[in-house]
């Protein structure tokens, strides 16, 4: 294994992106809206493509606007379908985001004829390519750092409103705190985060970064603030572990398994998501064991 400056930037970008996703992810999870994160991360695709088609460049602003609008559209339309069609939340989201995702793929194919846009990049991200940049610090590092800062700042400023809107939206409304607007705001922030994250980890893996750190953190803390903190730690560890596995253990093991010795390295973004999953299952098993054999330890709150 050889560690270069490029590896450092890959880990830094992956970690910043994962942590940026974990923040809105925790609140989606608390709202029992994990599926909304999934839906938004898929539904932003046509928004991005339309942004490309309209502006004709890979200028980030039009694609950002398109994606956020598409994300909002998903939240609103699935809500309408849920009420009017009397179907459950998951089903109405499924209807909306699958259609939008398919539409997005078609649009990207069309857009690809006009601008330099690769469907594969959109789906799986291009972490390894994105960090190759002339500047001393790659643009994508600034970008994911900025969105992490924004999300942390918003979570800190609106902490109690987000907490109340997730726990008891009716009481929030009755006491004059507009839980509906808070949920819309969360949708917007999720869409924004997804757009920034898709460039590094791809639209499909964003869902792992949104949900898995939060789900793991729920096992570790009994306070919303604690859950947030742990989710950041899990996101960071997933990024580091994921890249290490991608460049060292992964290829060797897979190479041995398949008989090929020239696998080079695996997708870092993919391994980061896989690591997040591994961390989740480790803690799940650990918490079960603690419950079983050390119930006194469980009572302590972290």
């Amino acid at each position: 294994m050889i560690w270069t400056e490029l590896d450092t930037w890959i880990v830094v970008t992956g970690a910043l992106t994962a942590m940026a996703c974990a923040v809105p992810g925790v609140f989606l999870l608390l709202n029992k809206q994990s599926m909304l994160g999934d839906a938004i991360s898929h539904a932003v695709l046509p928004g991005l493509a339309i942004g490309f088609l309209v502006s004709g460049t890979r200028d980030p602003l039009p694609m950002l606007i398109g994606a956020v609008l598409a994300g909002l559209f998903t939240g609103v339309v699935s809500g309408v379908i849920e009420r009017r069609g009397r179907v459950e939340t998951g089903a109405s989201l499924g209807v909306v985001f699958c259609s939008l995702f398919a539409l997005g793929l078609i649009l990207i194919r069309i857009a690809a004829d006009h601008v330099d846009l690769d469907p594969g990049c959109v789906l799986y991200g291009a972490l390894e390519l994105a960090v190759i940049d002339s500047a001393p610090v790659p643009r994508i590092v600034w970008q994911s750092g900025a969105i992490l800062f924004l999300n942390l700042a918003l979570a800190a400023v609106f902490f109690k409103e987000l907490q109340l809107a997730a726990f008891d939206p009716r009481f929030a409304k009755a006491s004059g705190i507009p839980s509906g607007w808070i949920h819309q705001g969360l949708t917007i922030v999720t869409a924004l985060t997804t757009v920034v994250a898709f460039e590094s980890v791809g639209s499909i893996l964003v869902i792992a970064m949104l949900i898995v750190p939060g789900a793991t953190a729920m096992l570790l803390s009994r306070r919303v603030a604690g859950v947030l903190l742990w989710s950041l730690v899990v996101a960071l560890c997933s990024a580091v572990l994921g890249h290490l596995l991608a460049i060292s253990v992964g290829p060797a093991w897979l190479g041995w398994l398949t008989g090929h010795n020239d696998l080079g390295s695996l997708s870092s973004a993919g391994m980061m998501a896989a690591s997040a999953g591994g961390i989740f299952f480790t803690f799940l098993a650990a918490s079960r064991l603690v419950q079983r054999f050390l119930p006194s330890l469980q009572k302590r709150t972290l």
Partner: protein
Amino acid sequence: MSTHPLEIRSLNVAYHRKMVLWDADLCIRPGRSTAIVGPNGAGKSTLLKAALGLIPAASGEVLFYGEPLKKVRSRVAYVPQRESVDWDFPVSARDVVAMGLYKKIGWCLPVRARHKRMADEALADVGLADFAGRQISQLSGGQQQRVFLARALAQKAELHLMDEPFASVDAATEQAILTLLRRLKDQGGTVVCVHHDLDTVAEYFDDVVLLNMRVVAQGPASEVLTPDNLRKTYGARLTLLDEAVVDLSRPGAPRES
């Protein structure tokens, strides 16, 4: 201008194009405790929710202390049904009670030490002083209900709207709630509860509103709780009263929806 804590005029509420409340007229008297009583599906919770603007009303007017809710929100506290939230949520009893103070604290400002003290006082008032730091899933059903009451107490409101506070609680909680209702009234407050137990209505409350999609009767418990009114409210389904049994075949009796 009316000084009634809550006045509802011809409130109509529909849910999925089906009427749930017809022309509900209601007047809650100050300084008294009122029970809203009726069969399942009678629209008791709906009445409270529609009055608070939590679900849209088709038509009608709701006034709190003679004003729309927006102007007098700090004078009104709401206690939702215990089942309406997820008690596995990662917050402590103190955190939940402090939620009653969020509006007062204001946007973007954190819960500070004195707010935590206020929350602890409210918890002590419902006999949960020792449970402030517990995560809410580690409380019994009755204790959870008392946490909800403490949250309303912390709001220091004048009118309390409670949705089924006595539903499936233990004896200790029942006593704690009753003591609380008495104290709220002694302090000049008004309490409105959705209630399901006909046996205890007259004992626990001053006034009664009988509801079955329409307001059947309202007034002092002793005047309202007549066999005739109860029959009108519960129709053939009330087997508690001998008279109701005779009426089983009565046409036009409200049916289970």
